[in-house]
């Protein structure tokens, strides 16, 4: 949400798109780092529950601040490219959709590469699996957590900015995206990036189908219904990696 909003503000100052994208993503990742520094790292004896409650607090605070500083209305954002559609194999795509799909693939690949092929990516995974053990090996867990905050802030902001021309920007646009991302993870299976991608695809297609065949007002419902269904039938997700124990 922040990404979209900041980008909107920058574009209003008639900055070029590429630059405004970069600035908004960077600013957001800085904010994410700041949040980690100020709040998360400072909380003593944090249990998982208290961290969850804290992040809820942080997110509604940010939304509240944006709701006041900007306003609560939905704002349109111009598509990135001057032409509004491209045609491929006789199919016509809106240019912004192509950008969204393209950037998703690039980000997914980069993330995969980072986590699997670089040392710091592997360290990050180690910390998430067993932070105590990682600490014993001399890894600065705080630093790793901070950079993961920065990365997720960066990616989140980019996603918000790229999707903005399609969805408009609004102070509370983030929740639905977050929830659907979660639904995609549940459907695909946690701890499995490819699964999450496929899960996202399943949910997206199901949504579009339901918008076409049932009613567009229930579009959002479908994602959650699929998620609940998967939770009932196969709680580990459709493509869960085997060593993930969730019980």
């Amino acid at each position, binding site marked *: 949400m922040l990404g979209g909003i900041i980008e909107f503000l920058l574009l209003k100052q008639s900055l070029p798109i590429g630059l405004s994208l970069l600035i908004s993503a960077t600013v957001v990742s800085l904010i994410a780092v700041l949040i980690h520094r100020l709040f998360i790292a400072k909380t003593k004896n944090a249990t998982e529950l208290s961290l*969850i409650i804290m992040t809820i*607090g942080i*997110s509604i605070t940010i939304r509240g601040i944006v709701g006041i500083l900007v306003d609560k209305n939905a704002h349109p954002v111009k598509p990135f490219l001057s032409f509004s559609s491209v045609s491929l194999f006789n199919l016509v795509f809106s240019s912004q959709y192509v950008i969204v799909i393209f950037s998703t693939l690039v980000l997914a690949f980069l993330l995969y590469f980072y986590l699997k092929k670089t040392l710091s990516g592997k360290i990050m995974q180690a910390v998430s699996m067993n932070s105590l053990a990682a600490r014993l090996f001399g890894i600065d867990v705080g630093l790793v957590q901070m950079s993961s905050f920065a990365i997720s802030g960066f990616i989140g902001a980019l996603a918000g900015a790229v999707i903005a021309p399609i969805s408009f920007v609004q102070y509370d646009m983030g929740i639905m995206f977050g929830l659907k991302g979660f639904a995609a993870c549940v459907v695909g299976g946690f701890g499995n990036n490819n699964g999450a991608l496929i899960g996202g695809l399943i949910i997206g297609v199901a949504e579009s189908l339901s918008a076409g065949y049932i009613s567009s007002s229930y579009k959002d419902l479908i994602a959650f219904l699929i998620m*609940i269904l998967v939770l009932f039938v196969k709680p580990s997700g459709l493509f869960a990696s085997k060593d993930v124990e969730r019980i």
Partner: protein
Amino acid sequence: MKKKTFLLLLFILTMAVGIVIKNPFILNMLSMAALTVIVVTGLNLLLGFAGQISLGHAGFVALGAYISSLLSVKLGINPWVAIFVAVLASSLFGAIIGYPTLKLKSHYLAMATLAIGEIIHIVVNNYVELTGGPQGFSGMPMLSLFGFVLDNETKFYFFIWPVTFLLILLSINLVESRFGRAYKAIKSKENAAYAFGVNVHMYKVFIFTVSVFYASLAGALYAFYIGFISPSSFGLTQSIDYIVMVVIGGMGNFFGIFFTTIILSVLPNILTSIEDYWPIVNGLLLIFAMMVIPNGMKRLFSWIK
């Protein structure tokens, strides 16, 4: 002082307030606070004792409100029967949906319950033919008790507060039994809970169902008291408000939560000028509580055993 003694004193105090104060505006505010106390007491059982978060409780309040109203208005069923059926149906829904959901932990659980709340919200908002959609739904008759119609603020005040106190008493009873000990174990030492014979998953589903019972009952009573319901009263904002009340009150502490809930539900009515800033206040309260007083107002009430 014992919990139940203190509860009795509070009850007497509340009744005295009702006798002394004649201003319908204040009485209305306090009755609304009572309804919130019911929801939050239920959520406290789930979050404060069993340590399981729910970000969808406003959805369950909506279930109780809408089902009972629809039964009463569309089918002409007696309001009490409608409330009874609605609460039963909501609890059943809670149990069924809770079964897979409560296998999830921590932030996964938070997200899943958030999604459940959103599902209910979306349905209520979009099924316009049945619920009236965003325009809301009205036409519920006044409740009456033994031929005594609850048609003004004072009467409802003297109905809702005893109900609220009864519900608090019941949850204190539960917490002071073997089940209370089991839930405290589930919250902090799940392995110990297993070792001493607690079927952790079923216990979680049960307490979730109980808290849905509390929420839907409050929702149903709210619907018949106000006579008008709309989706905007049952959104994520309200779900988070409930969490704030449990957290600031001190998770698991009945009386801290009691006072926090009353204060936090009355304040926005008085400070209407800062309405826009309210979410920020809530957010900052949560952050502050987690960083500085993770036990909320528990310390203030530690003399009550």
